């Protein structure tokens, strides 16, 4: 197992970036980080924009594509459900452009990516045997509050994420850690599905009070039946704390349970879940996704950026 070192940093602490990977979709915030942090990019920075092969006619999407083109990004298209797309892309780029380097700094804006995409990037960086040190900066742009959509989305994809799951013996019951979002009922069915002891994680009020209220309201049925000691609220901007508490919890649970994390809410929680899975090796992270039935919300950036440095 490789060692992983993580640290939350501010945008001003970002070094010069050698490779930046962003995604282009229907969200307004897709381009925010590329613009805001362009000071860390220089002429030699390899800039890749991964566009989803769906919703290409969406007006915001077209604007995003144009802007990335203007900023000098190379455009590559792929499916948001394709687990191997990012992996193939990264391998190609590193072999082609960085094989002579000792170390590189990679900035990944995962704000608008699907979980499979940034999971795939992290997995690739963890398992591959590149002959160079890679410093990864996962950047996330917070969105302004948007009320939850009224229609219920189904859980279409409920699968372990490749690279973040391994076989274990069912001699212990399952502990299910759900990172809750505000799409109604997505989390509710999971407890029954896994027949598990459930632990809930969601944001505390430190950033977006309205969002938290929505989460509590829409997941009230589940929150009501889970004992309070199994409910964890975390500050979304303190990923080090989240990583610590999730790590400690998983370690505690592993004695008596098989642990599955099902991140349904904010992407930073998913990122931390993936890191925990790589650290602890026998914690599964499952993808719980509505697929293309997801509600298309054009999230607008609120100006804040969260950066998490990962060194493998």
């Amino acid at each position, binding site marked *: 197992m490789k060692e992983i070192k993580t640290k939350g940093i501010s945008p001003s602490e970002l070094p010069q970036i050698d490779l930046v990977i962003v995604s282009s979709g229907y969200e307004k915030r897709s381009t925010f980080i590329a613009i805001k942090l362009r000071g860390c990019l220089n002429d030699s920075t390899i800039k890749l924009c991964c566009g989803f092969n769906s919703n290409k006619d969406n007006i915001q999407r077209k604007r995003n594509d144009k802007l990335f083109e203007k900023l000098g990004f190379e455009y590559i298209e792929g499916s948001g459900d394709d687990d191997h797309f990012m992996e193939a892309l990264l391998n190609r780029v590193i072999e082609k452009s960085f094989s002579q380097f000792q170390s590189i700094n990679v900035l990944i804006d995962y704000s608008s990516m699907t979980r499979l995409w940034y999971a795939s990037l992290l997995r690739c960086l963890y*398992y*591959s*045997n590149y002959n160079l040190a890679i410093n990864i900066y996962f950047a996330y742009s917070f969105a302004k509050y948007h009320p939850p959509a009224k229609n*219920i989305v*189904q*859980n*279409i994809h*409920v*699968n*372990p994420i*490749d*690279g973040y*799951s*391994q*076989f*274990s*013996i*069912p*001699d212990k*019951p*399952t502990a299910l850690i759900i990172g809750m979002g505000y799409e109604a*009922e*997505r989390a*509710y*069915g*999971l407890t*029954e*599905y*896994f*027949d*598990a*002891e459930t632990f809930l994680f969601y944001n505390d009020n430190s950033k977006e009070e309205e969002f938290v209220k929505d989460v509590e309201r829409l997941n009230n*049925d589940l929150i*009501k*039946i889970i*004992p*309070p000691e199994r409910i964890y609220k975390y500050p979304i901007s303190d990923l080090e704390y989240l990583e610590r508490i999730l790590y400690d919890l998983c370690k505690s649970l592993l004695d008596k349970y*098989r642990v*599955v994390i099902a991140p349904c809410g904010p992407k930073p929680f998913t990122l931390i879940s993936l890191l925990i899975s790589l650290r602890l090796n026998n914690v*599964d992270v499952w993808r*719980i996704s509505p*697929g*293309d*039935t997801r509600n298309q919300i054009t999230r607008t950036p609120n100006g804040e950026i969260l950066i998490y440095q990962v060194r493998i």
Partner: protein
Amino acid sequence: MTKLDIYESFNARYLSFEDIARTFIANSQFEQLLGNNHTLLMGPRGSGKTTLLKMLTPLSQYYFSKYNNSKNWDLQFLAIYIPTDIQWKRQIEIFNKHLSYPQNIIDNFPRFLVTNNILICLLNTFEQIININSDFSSNDAILYQETQLCTQLINSWNIEKPILPSLNSIKQALYKRLQFGNTLLKKFRYEPNFQLDSLPDYFYQDYFDLILLGCTDFGNVFKEYRNAKWALCFDELEISPDWLQHELIQKFRSIDQRFIFKLTTSPLVSIVDKLSMKTLEIEAREDEDYRVVRTWNYNLKGEIEWNSFGEKLLTQKFQRFFDNDRKPIDVFGSDEETRNLSKNFSKLKVQERSNLSNSPYAKGNYYYVLFKELAYIDETFRYFLIHKGIDPSNPFPHSDEQLDQIFRKILPIAIFRFAYKKANKSIRSRKNPGLYYGLPMIYELCDGNPRFLIGLVDALLLSTNENASKLKITIQQQSIMIHDFSKKYLDLIGSHPDSNREIYPNKFLNLGTLLKEIGSYFSSKMLRENFIMDVFSTFVIDANVPDKIVELIELGVHLGAVIYLDPKTVVSSEGLRDKKFRLSYLLHPTFSLPIREFKSVKLSTILKKGKHEKISDQLTFSL
């Protein structure tokens, strides 16, 4: 009362053997399971199968005697509990889809997993027996015997050396094999040039050979068990790999006599191979080679037994959580129709009791008033009565034959229809008329499922802020809560991750939507359309139902949302086709249906609504 007080885990999966034993209530299903024969224990989720199976284990038996100061059942076998779970199932399914692994890995890895699981369960059982024999204290002689046993097991199972002769070390060695297997898969996945000359021998071991050797070794060391019979208790067979399900059922006839199987599974086992769609040859015959124990209610006998069990379960719960000796019946009351009707009809309409006969159907009594009132607001019901030779303004039975063949049959329909019509007379309000209440009905609603019962009672108790000593929940409150619980249960079914099937290209159907469609059909026929006596509340899966919908119904059966009726066949080559089902009674309140079984209709009729050949587009969604 807080949720800390009330909510307790009723999921046997994460209860310890001790907890299970401490709260165990024996029933006739358990008595049947004790038999010295192969048994298929069949039932939906939450119906108590895991509890019953775990209760067979040496450790549960030990704790049961301890907590009950009584001799436990005289088991003729030593039970080895072997679990599985959905996490595993899903991982194996995904593994099977991976075409990039070498053939020897594809062929042998799932078997290797199953074998590893079984061996660890066997070791756990040995550990239980050893601990019980030493009464959980340090005992040198028994420690020495353990090392002797482990020395033999290490040789019999070819465990990697050097190793300590302890059960824990052997378990660690098995976990290490699993770790090796996982690492191997990762290497194939992430190292493009990785080659493996050959798999270690343990990938090819047969689980049953190893069980045989292990139990023989145990008997050689612990001589009092030399002639012991062993029961292999495989839980949740329906989520085990298909090949294992079929192998185990096949083994009913051919297995060594020292072993019996106790298998739990869904209410119906399909022996159609899902890949080849061929029917598998099963030689074993029910009653000859194996017994079937069903854990859901499908006949009157089952209902009576369930009510008795439910009574004990709730009494135990109440004793644990209430200081006084408040009984469930005190809190929920009876389910007599008159409790509802007395609230519906003012005293003016019901004459003084002293002048009436005891029969509620008699002139002037509650049912009489009900029929009369319904005939007044429901024209089609009035015509029905007239057609049957009954005066709508004076509807009472003139003979016993009329009472049995008409009045008793129409009563439940009339109550619900009246409530529905009354609620819908005023278009704005849809008040719940309080149709679901009373302890006997609560038992019925739960269809023999202890998990439903505990969940429902918890919700009912938590809905009130009353002091425990005074607690009595009105029929209105009960009805509202039951209705909410029913709706939430339906939502839960709909949000189950497996509940979506692609029935036509890019057209998905959700199980929740399907059940809603079925329930609404019955509800419409019963409450909204012209009054008929022979209403529907059950359905048959006919040949015209698409396979994917049958799969959804199968999921519904497994989850307990759909109940298999007249279960004469348990192992079937036709799967669910031509079999009769109904919605779980727990779903009936969502559709305002009475807790009763009525006639049957073809499922394709419900789905097509008589209009199109295809399933209605409104039911499906696209990605």
